[in-house]
């Protein structure tokens, strides 16, 4: 599903990050760990198409995405950010639907039911708790049925109970929609729960 080869990224014309080759199949979960500043989030942003000026190959479904436009990549990717960002003027419903075209709107009831956010749809982001925001962020990433689901520290602001819930939710959803799930985290609670993991140095 997703494969990375010879990936390097240089920023500020000085610091070069080198990433090991790795791949992740459908319905598989890959955990990427590493100390702060080793380029975890940068890797996720490269995979998510937010950064384009990298060297090396990133393939999705055996297709090289290097040369493709950001927009096309994004249709195949769902990103869950560490700090959930929302459009403040839109309701939770519209904050989720903003990620997809009209033909996908029909999936909203199912998702909101599954993620337990059905009662929040008419609220505004500022009225949500941290855990609720995280779940809305997950709904927004999932509603486009991405081939690859990318999660950046999805549990950093959650307690143990919620961490388990979110983690199983992510894996469950990835399985239902046959997505590859890549989690970037330094959370030991996740390390314990997952077996395949890459450590960046």
């Amino acid at each position, binding site marked *: 599903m997703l494969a990375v080869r010879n990936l390097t990224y240089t920023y500020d014309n000085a610091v070069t990050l080198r990433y090991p080759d790795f791949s992740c199949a459908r319905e598989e979960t890959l955990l990427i760990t590493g100390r702060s500043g080793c380029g975890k989030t940068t890797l996720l942003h490269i995979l998510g198409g937010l950064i384009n000026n990298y060297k090396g190959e990133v393939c999705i479904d055996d297709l090289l995405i290097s040369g493709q436009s950001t*927009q096309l990549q994004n249709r195949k990717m769902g990103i869950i950010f560490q700090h959930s960002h929302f459009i403040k003027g839109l309701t939770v419903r519209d904050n989720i639907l903003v990620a997809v075209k009209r033909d996908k709107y029909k999936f909203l009831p199912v998702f909101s039911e599954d993620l337990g956010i059905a009662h929040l749809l008419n609220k505004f982001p500022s009225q949500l708790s941290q855990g609720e925001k995280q779940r809305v962020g997950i709904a927004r990433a999932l509603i486009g049925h991405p081939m690859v689901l990318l999660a950046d520290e999805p549990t950093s602001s959650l307690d143990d109970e919620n961490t388990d819930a979110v983690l199983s939710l992510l894996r469950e959803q990835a399985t239902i929609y046959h997505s590859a799930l890549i989690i970037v985290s330094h959370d030991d609670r996740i390390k314990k729960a997952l077996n395949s993991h890459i450590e960046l140095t």
Partner: protein
Amino acid sequence: MIIKLIFANLRYKWLSTLLSWILLLFGVAIISLLWTLQQQLEHKFDNELKNIDLVVGAKGSPLQLVLSAVYHVDAPTGNINEIEAARLTHNPMIEWSIPLAYGDNYKGYSIVGTTLKYIINENGRLANGRIFQEPMEAVIGSNVKASEGLEIGSTFLGTHGQDEHGHQHKGLPYKVVGILKPAGTMADNLILTDIATVRLIHEHHDIDDKDEDEGKQVETEITALLIKFRSPMGMMTFPRTINQTTNMQAAVPTLEINRLMGLIGIGIDTLQYVALAIMMMAGLSVFISLLNRLKERKYELALLRSLGYSRLQLFLIVISEAMLLSFAGFLSGVAVSRLGLILLNYQSNTNFKFYISVISKGEIILLGITLLIGLVASLIPALTIYWLNISKILSDE
């Protein structure tokens, strides 16, 4: 969803949206109102000037003479001797002349004693009834009929002077014998009768108040004379001759009105600059509120980029916000300006009514200016979208 985004942003910062909108509204309303007033005043004045080259009346202010004899919005300067006036009209340079006797009103509408020629010159056509033939018979303009509800056969009493609360000429009622069609000229707002009638009223008036107007030979006087020359040559010498050799004065309406418009123009220009300054402030307010929001907006914009919205789409969203605001400001501004005109019409003296159009040519230009202000104000904030470092913004707290 893009439209939803535009409205969501405007609604989220509703206070600064409201401020920008109100500033735009007032700028547009003031400019539009001023333009309409100026245009229609000029049009109205010019319309009446087409046919009248010279006004002869009693000595006094030439502007007053023109305003009273041509537009019936001022008191007459006095009376002139009819025989003396008639002597002038024998001049071969004169194509025609119309005598006027006025100074009374009915509920603010001037009562003018004149000849059939005046009605023809003012494009008056009878809607029904006939022209005045006997003393005390009157033909009324369309606006007089509409607002006072006079019909053929109705009678009414005139009031002395320009003010509707003046001394009433009791005992001599006018009788309506004809009603004119709307002509778009002064005739719409006048009550027309023959000169003999006006004279009859004032003979009666003199018997009424013997202490006033003593020694005046009322029966041989008129108030003013409207003159049209055969060629512009007449205007060169004729007015001077009258002013120097008689105790009458000749005033050229075109000159007097140009002088008046020049004076009004200074005031209108100043107000226009004020209105333009208000609109500039509106533009600045849009600019500052967009720029202010950009810091917190950049997360939203970066997020949208990460969700697959293109730079152009986001650029258009920001521009559209400002344009939408400008357009709303323009529409409501024009609406307020129209409301102002309706109020003015309602309040103003009956002799001037403003025509209320849906939109004028000047306002289309104004729309352009308003949209341009919106565009310029939003351009810089919108362009910053092209320099957003999405990855950096989204990984920042």
